[in-house]
C-alpha cells in the first residue's frame, strides 16, 4: 500500500521551531528545506 496517507501542506502547520530554522542564514545557505523535514516526520508517522 503505497498511498502516503497524508498530504503535506506547509501552510496548515504552525511549527515555530522549524519555521525559525527556515529563517536562519546558515540553514538557508546549507540547503535546508522545511518540506524535507515535514515529509520525514509525516512518513515516520504513517509508516
Amino acid at each position, binding site marked *: 500500500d503505497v498511498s502516503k496517507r497524508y498530504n503535506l501542506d506547509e501552510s496548515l502547520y504552525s*511549527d515555530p521551531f522549524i519555521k525559525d530554522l527556515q529563517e536562519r542564514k546558515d540553514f538557508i545557505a546549507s540547503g535546508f528545506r522545511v518540506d524535507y523535514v515535514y515529509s520525514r516526520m509525516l512518513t*515516520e508517522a504513517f509508516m
Partner: protein
Amino acid sequence: FRHSSQYRFWSFTPEQLEQRRIEVNAQAVQSIEQDLRNFIDARSTELNEEEIKTIENRAVPVNMEEELKLVNLYAKKVQTIAQRLNLPTEIVATSITFFRRFYLENSVMKIEPKAIVLTTIFLACKSENYFIGIDSFCEKTRGDKEQVLKYEFPLLESLKFSLLSHHPYRPLHGFFLDIQAVLHGKVDLSYMGHIYDRCKKRITDALLTDAVYFYSPPQITLAVLMLEDEALTTRYLELKFHGNDTNQGNAEDEASRGNGNVTIQLDKLMKIVTNCSKLIEKPTTVPVEEAKSIAARLYFCQNPDDL
C-alpha cells in the same frame, strides 16, 4: 517499516516474547545448576553439610519473571545515566532499546546487567553519530575502559547487528503536523505544544515496556497521544480514518485527510491503540528490596565460594 530490521528481528507476539525469555532463562538455569553441582563436587571433601545446605538454599538461579524485573530495573538506570550525560532524546531511547534487546538474547545470570549498561550507551552514541571517545566517555561515567569495550562485540552480535531504531518521537512530530491539517482551525496550538512535551516524556517511559516489541512506533505514539488527550486523538482519528465528519465528502477535507485509498479501519486501529495504551500505562518499576534479593541470588550463583 516491515523492511526494517526493527520489524524483521525485534517484533513479537506476547506469546513469542514470553517463550523467548523462558528459553533464555532455562538455558542459563541449566548451566548455572551444572556449575553449582560441579562446584560442590569439586569440594566434596572440604565443604561440610551446613555449607552445602547454605549454597543450595541461597545460590538459587533466578526465574524468568525475576530476570525481567532486574532488566527493567537496569533499563531505568540506563535511561538515568544517559540523561545525566545530557544525551539527545533519541540516543537515550536507543541506549534503552539496545539494553533491553540484549536481554532477549542473554540471561542476567550469564552477563550481569551492570556490566553492560555503559557499553549500551557507548554503542548507542557511536551508532547515532554522536561519537564520544572511550577516554572521555569513561571519564564522564567513571566506567572502566576495558569493560566497556569488551562487551561491544557481544552486544553488537546480540543485537543481530540491527542498529537503526525507529523511535516514536518523529511520528509524534508527524502527528503534531497532521492533526493541525485534519483538525485545521479547531485545535489550540499552544495547547498542542504543551501536550507535545508531555508526550515525549511518556514515549521515553513507553520504551521501558514491551510495547516496543508488540507495536510499531506510530501506534505507540497514538497510544501516548490517547493517554494525553483522548478526545482530541479520537476526534483526529475518526476524521482521518473514518471520514464521519458532519460535512462529509467535502473535497478540501478529503484532500487534507489524504484519504486516497486508505486501508486502515478505524475500529481496528482504535483497538490496537487502546491495548497499547493499557500496556504502556503498566509501571515497570521494581521494589528496591525485591531487586536486591534477586541481585543477591544472582551474585551467589556466580560466586558460591563467597557463600
